[in-house]
């Protein structure tokens, strides 16, 4: 009951005409920020932060939060239409999103991603509303041993990403791990493979690599196939009259995917530092590993799009938990929100929700509204976005190159990263041509440094003993879940196949 009175109070604070205008504006800005490749929510938030300083904190935080989760909706659009992830959390959405569009199902794919985002976001807020204190405990139980095990769990998903040719897949992953070693060695402080360049001290950021490998790589491959010469033919086929709405089969086949993706995404999002990117990749490989037809993944399977989309939105809600219950930002975006709280003179921490109930619950209430607003914006905007694919490829191609370059540059204003993006584009083309796995490379680049740093931290703490991994309760939990996902679930799927078919026939 207490929760409902708190939530009701939140709504009464959030629902004022001016606050709704801020919410709507934030959602729109978030969409746009998400659509531009590379230009993710944290950059959008940081740039708009100075604007909000003169505003009422509740309206301002509603707007900033709307930008944050709005970007999760917008980020997928270019993933689906151009194979160019709008931001890191939507890399996994390219795997099946783009093949769906190529198969002429861009409309249903965009509608399903909006629906999946809505479900993920809303389930996430419901979980915040009822279980924030409980998940606050989860956030604070994660130390280096748990991060290492989580990274290992993520690496198991590499097996799924590697694709059909496992030798080339392994080589792709090894290239990713190698690139991940560039930059300052966190433990000793020594520079590795930076060749004296200050720009490489921080390592090779994976956003330029992902944009280059997926976006530019696909573009070069299309040019290689002569798509630009085929007159008006776009990159993907689209037929508005017949194929805008998803079919009943799309909804039915993904209903449990949405549930699984939401819960998995939220739990991963709650862990500081893991975030929406890892959540979406894990949700994708979970769906694929329990699917009855894993061979369809990567070729335009709706479940393969819905899983990462529900997960990344649920994760962005989940990342609010450490912020609200501990004052610890779980991601780059929530770090900017934390800076905003500090600038307004608040003191985020365990007492934050108690001391600022109006702000905290107003924010939570606004997230329910924001997800609805974004669903509506998306449904109206999809017919506009799909116009992109009607543009002849010879015109669209160069525009995509410019957008990729500008998007990459906008993240850190770095020329080096822009060059890395172009280099990754050429590498991506050849990877595509010879059957390597760009997804495995990107995933290895994300997880490699995470695993290395966490393992070395762990062993420093344990003074070299590996026993620490079985001495801590949270570590044991992760090991248990991993064993369940990797060993037991596929086995159960295999045994349960007969009954599943019967159910489908009956439905």
């Amino acid at each position: 009951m207490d929760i409902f009175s708190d939530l009701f109070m939140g709504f009464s604070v959030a629902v004022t005409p001016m606050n709704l205008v801020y919410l709507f504006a934030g959602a729109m800005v978030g969409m746009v920020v998400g659509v531009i490749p590379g230009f993710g929510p944290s950059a959008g938030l940081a740039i708009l932060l100075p604007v909000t300083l003169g505003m009422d904190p509740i309206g301002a935080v509603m707007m900033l939060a709307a930008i944050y989760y709005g970007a999760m909706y917008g980020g997928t659009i270019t993933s689906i239409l151009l194979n160019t992830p709008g931001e890191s959390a939507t890399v996994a959405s390219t795997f099946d999103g783009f093949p769906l569009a190529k198969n002429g199902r861009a409309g249903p794919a965009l509608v399903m991603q909006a629906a999946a985002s809505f479900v993920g976001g809303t389930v996430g807020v419901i979980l915040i509303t009822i279980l924030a204190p409980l998940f606050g405990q989860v956030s604070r139980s994660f130390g280096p041993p748990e991060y290492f095990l989580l990274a290992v769990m993520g690496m198991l998903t590499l097996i799924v990403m590697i694709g059909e040719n496992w030798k080339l897949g392994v080589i792709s992953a090894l290239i990713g791990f190698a690139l991940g070693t560039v930059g300052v060695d966190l433990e000793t402080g020594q520079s590795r493979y930076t060749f004296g360049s200050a720009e490489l001290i921080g390592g090779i950021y994976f956003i330029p690599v992902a944009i280059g490998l997926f976006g530019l790589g696909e573009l070069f491959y299309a040019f290689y196939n002569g798509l630009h010469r085929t007159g008006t033919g776009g990159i993907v086929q689209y037929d508005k009259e017949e194929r805008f709405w998803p079919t009943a089969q799309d909804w039915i086949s993904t209903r449990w995917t949405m549930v699984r993706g939401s819960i998995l995404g939220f739990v991963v999002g709650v862990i500081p530092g893991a975030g929406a990117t890892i959540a979406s990749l894990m949700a994708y490989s979970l769906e694929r590993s329990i699917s009855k037809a894993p061979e369809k993944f990567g070729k335009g399977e709706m479940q393969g799009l819905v899983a990462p989309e529900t997960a990344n939105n649920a994760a962005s809600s989940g990342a609010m938990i450490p912020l609200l219950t501990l004052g610890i930002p779980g991601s780059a975006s929530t770090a900017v929100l934390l800076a905003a709280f500090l600038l307004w003179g608040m003191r985020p921490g365990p007492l934050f929700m108690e001391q600022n109930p109006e702000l905290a619950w107003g924010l939570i209430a606004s997230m329910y509204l924001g997800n609805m607003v974004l669903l509506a914006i998306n449904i109206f905007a999809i017919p506009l976005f799909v116009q992109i694919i009607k543009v002849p490829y010879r015109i669209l191609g160069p525009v995509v190159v410019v957008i990729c370059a500008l998007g990459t540059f906008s993240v850190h204003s770095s020329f080096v990263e822009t060059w890395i993006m172009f280099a990754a584009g050429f590498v991506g083309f050849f990877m595509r041509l010879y059957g390597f796995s760009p997804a495995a490379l990107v995933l290895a680049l994300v997880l490699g440094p995470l695993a290395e740093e966490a393992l070395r931290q762990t062993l420093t703490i344990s003074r070299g003993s590996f026993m620490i991994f079985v001495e801590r309760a949270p570590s044991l939990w992760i090991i248990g879940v991993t064993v369940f996902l990797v060993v037991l679930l596929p086995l159960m799927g295999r045994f349960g196949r007969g009954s599943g078919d019967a159910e489908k026939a009956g439905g």
Partner: protein
Amino acid sequence: MNFMAHTAARRIFGTAMAAAVAVPLAFAGMAAAQDYPSADETLDWTIAFGPGGGNDIMARSIVEILNKYDLYPGDIKVENRAGGSGAVGWGYLASQAGNPYGISTTSGSFVTTPLQADTGWAPEDFTPVALLATDDLVLVVNGSSEIQNIEEFIAYAKENPINIGGTGTVNVDFIVPTLFAQAAGFEFDYVSFNDMSEQTTALLSNALDAMVGNPGEILGLIESGDLRPLVFSGQNIPDALAGVPTMGDIGYDIGVSMPRGLILAPDAPAEAQEWWIETMKKVVDTPEWKEYIASNTLTPTVIYGEDFRTFLTKTKNGFEEVLKSVGAVQ
């Protein structure tokens, strides 16, 4: 956008005011020093990091104060030039040698980045205006720890293996506990993290024994009793940490902190340097500046001009010595 528009509006207003006042006095004798700053020149303010960070907040706070009190007559263009831990932004300023209208704020990376990479500039190359504040660190343990105060901590650390977490290695987070441990006579394992949040959860989850951090970022957890502050590395205790001793109080003063100051391009004219020193003396007296210092739990430490250059050289040499001794830099 809003920020720039605000600045532009100020400029128009400021110019109109200046014209109204200045015209009757135009021939009252312009000394050479009054040529700087010219209202026609745009001040090119470089922030070597992205929006939202400590350096950004400091620079924008100063610019707001300059605008609010009409201390700078011309237009101020603020630009974030992030990249390479500050190498890009300060490299841009270093390339404008002699230009009196290039300016930037410094932070810890101003000292550490040139030690790590071939930046082409060193902290003492720039024209120093003022050190305005220092960022200091607080040593904390988990609120459920049996260690209640710094004396117990040192006694425990002398008898048992202990680890202390911090952010980065080529950083004051590593240097401060290293120097403190040398002074107090204990040994520890340093655990380096990428950011404050991973490090804080590591301590809350009882993986770490202790950590150092910027008080501003963990005040909420200190207030709720989840973290227990033991000792502070600065000279003066911030109000929020009342009751906690400084390292100096217990006899282990280490004299190292992160400089937050203001610099001009290398070889800027003396009149520009002089003008900015005088102006910053006014800035640090404003209530807005005091508010900035308090809300960011900085230690106000003000040193002007060449003394600031000496301070930078000393800090750099101190850092280099510690980092070389552990092999972090060559």
